[in-house]
């Protein structure tokens, strides 16, 4: 208060780190012996991945009848899981692109991590619509190619838009991730002791020398990619929501869907980054980089997007009543009171009520609360997609065709299996790649700014210790 309205920003990197210690902290994880838990986690993930392959094989062999779908409810867990995984992926792009454009320095601690999550989550997501087509051997019909009758795909179909949106999203995310990795690959190339590893990292580093003539174009490319990825991520979930909104099913046919889906995607994605980050920072000792301030900032975003989603739930209800359309009104009242009311209230409590703990600073800065709530939010967001997909289909216009949908064991195990795919990749990423953007973290150190030094270019004399960490009551 005595600082006359001037709020001192907490340092982005805690501890007295130098450029060298940052390199060592992150790059040496790759060199250090692999912790025992990694092998256990990797083994379990591999088993689940095997399970996924079994389930997909069984599905392709037998047909989509092995799922719990029926004539009334033709979209079930597959679509729910697709939207859920894609949504999770969006936080990665938000953190890497949108926060970059807004010059949020704190993103550097988590962006590499979140981008990796995006890529693996989109891989998990992509499986579901692909196998949902039933006859996977003619999946090329979704590509812009004439089929055996010289017919082209229907470019007016939201499902086809989805193909373009998700595949573009995956490609651009991969490019963005790789561009960010190039300077860090060079760091590993210059650092690892094994000759083979140095050769491999060197190949991926593409001959990077860190010259400013390279950085100049690199920075431009990075900014342009951020500028391209930002509208892209919004378009992807908008198009995913079109899968629903362009149809005429009550409860789906609403214009609020695109912004509501995007907010929900960011909400669940941030929660997923949080869950993964809290584990990784502890195990790999990265608390100086992924600080409690980062967790607090992410919790604020979870709170904000949680309320955006909550607003959408309430607004949907209001508009259903205000529209005066019988079917629309029924769809929404039925969601809250009908056969799927249990799912609706799980969704409401996880997504709208649970994040309110984050109004309190103590809760936002508590690791345990953050971790538990991040899991709760992801459960809630899964149920949101369940409520949207299933309730609207199960009871539509004709009471005679109403049905109740339950998944089969194949549905459940396929979903469980995608976690195997996700974590197999994620663990490989933690093991072999720098999990924090080394060059970018160095950029946010105070020493990176030439103005930090005195006229002679020497380090300034450090101020008294007390000013170093103004609010470290973490």
């Amino acid at each position, binding site marked *: 208060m005595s600082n006359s309205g001037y709020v001192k920003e907490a340092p982005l990197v805690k501890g007295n780190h130098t*450029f*060298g210690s940052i*390199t060592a902290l992150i790059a040496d994880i790759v060199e250090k012996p692999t912790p025992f838990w990694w092998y256990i986690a990797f083994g379990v993930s591999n088993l689940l991945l095997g399970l996924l392959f079994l389930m997909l094989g069984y599905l392709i062999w037998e047909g989509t009848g092995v799922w719990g779908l029926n004539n009334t409810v033709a979209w079930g867990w597959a679509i729910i899981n697709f939207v859920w995984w894609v949504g999770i992926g969006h936080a990665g792009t938000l953190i890497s692109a949108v926060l970059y454009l807004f010059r949020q320095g704190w993103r550097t601690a988590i962006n590499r991590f979140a981008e990796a999550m995006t890529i693996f989550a989109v891989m998990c997501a992509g499986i579901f619509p692909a196998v949902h087509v039933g006859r996977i051997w003619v999946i090329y019909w979704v590509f*812009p190619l*004439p089929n055996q009758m*010289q*017919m*082209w795909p229907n*470019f*007016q179909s*939201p499902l086809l*838009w989805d193909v*373009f*949106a998700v595949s*573009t999203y995956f*490609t*651009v995310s991969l*490019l*963005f991730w*790789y*561009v960010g990795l190039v*300077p860090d690959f*060079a*760091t590993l190339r*210059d*650092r690892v002791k094994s000759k083979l590893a140095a050769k491999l990292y060197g190949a991926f580093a*593409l*001959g*990077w*020398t*860190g*010259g*400013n*003539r*390279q*950085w*100049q*174009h*690199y*920075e*431009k*490319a990075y900014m*342009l*990619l951020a500028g*391209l990825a930002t*509208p*892209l991520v919004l*378009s992807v979930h908008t*198009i995913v929501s*079109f899968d629903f909104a362009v149809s005429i099913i009550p409860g789906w046919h609403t214009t609020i869907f695109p912004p509501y889906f995007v907010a929900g995607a960011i909400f669940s994605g941030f929660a997923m980054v949080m869950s993964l980050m809290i584990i990784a920072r502890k195990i790999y000792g990265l608390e100086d980089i992924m600080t409690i301030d980062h967790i607090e900032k992410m919790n604020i975003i979870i709170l904000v997007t949680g309320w955006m989603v909550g607003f959408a739930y309430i607004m949907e209800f209001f508009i259903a009543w205000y529209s005066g359309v019988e079917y629309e009104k029924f769809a929404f009242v039925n969601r809250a009171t009908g056969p799927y009311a249990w799912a609706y209230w799980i969704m409401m409590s996880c997504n709208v009520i649970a994040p309110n703990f984050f109004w309190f600073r103590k809760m936002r800065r508590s690791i345990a609360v953050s971790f538990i709530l991040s899991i709760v939010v992801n459960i809630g967001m899964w149920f949101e997609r369940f409520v949207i997909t299933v309730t609207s289909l199960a009871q539509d216009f004709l009471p005679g065709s109403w049905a109740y949908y339950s998944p089969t064991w194949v549905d459940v195990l396929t979903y469980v299996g995608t976690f195997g795919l996700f974590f197999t990749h994620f663990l490989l990423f933690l093991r072999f790649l720098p999990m924090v953007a*080394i*060059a*970018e973290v*160095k950029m946010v150190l105070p020493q*990176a*700014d*030439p103005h*930090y*030094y005195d006229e002679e*270019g020497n380090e300034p004399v450090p101020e008294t210790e007390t000013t170093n960490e103004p609010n470290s009551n973490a």
Partner: protein
Amino acid sequence: MSSQVKEQESKVFALLAEYDNPAKLMKAAKLVNRAGYTKFDAHSPFPIHGMDDAMGLKESKLGWIVLSHALVGFAGGLALQVWASSIAYPINIGGRPFANIPAYVPVTFELTILLSAFAAVFGMLFLNNLPKHHHSLFNSENFQRVTDDKFFICIETEDGMYSEEETMKFLEGTGASHIEQVYE
């Protein structure tokens, strides 16, 4: 490696001066630029704000490469859809026009972004002359720390202003902590 043997038989590629921090590098880069050298570069573990001006670099042309590809993606995406649905095999879908432009917006947009992103990445690599199998600077043992915590200026012998003694003397006056010759 066998740097001893190498040094005798190959010619000098550049003079490499080492600096301790970004401020010293920036100062040196300004001096090198002002002295009139053109074939030089300032190497650092991370991009340094203001270095482009210090080195006197022109703005990157990458934006134009990306824009041209964006336009190709836009026009190509739209043309593909219009052509496929109204010329190659017109199909009546719910009585809508064959060339139903509003419905083509999503795919057109995605293809615009896709081509722009490819242009941004591969255009950047093209402008940076990457990928490269080897670079002469990698022959320097010290240069390995450019991706860690050291800062370097290299002046190539190809530079018109280069002279072995004068350039060395000049670099010594820029606050370098260490200067070496790097062989090709």
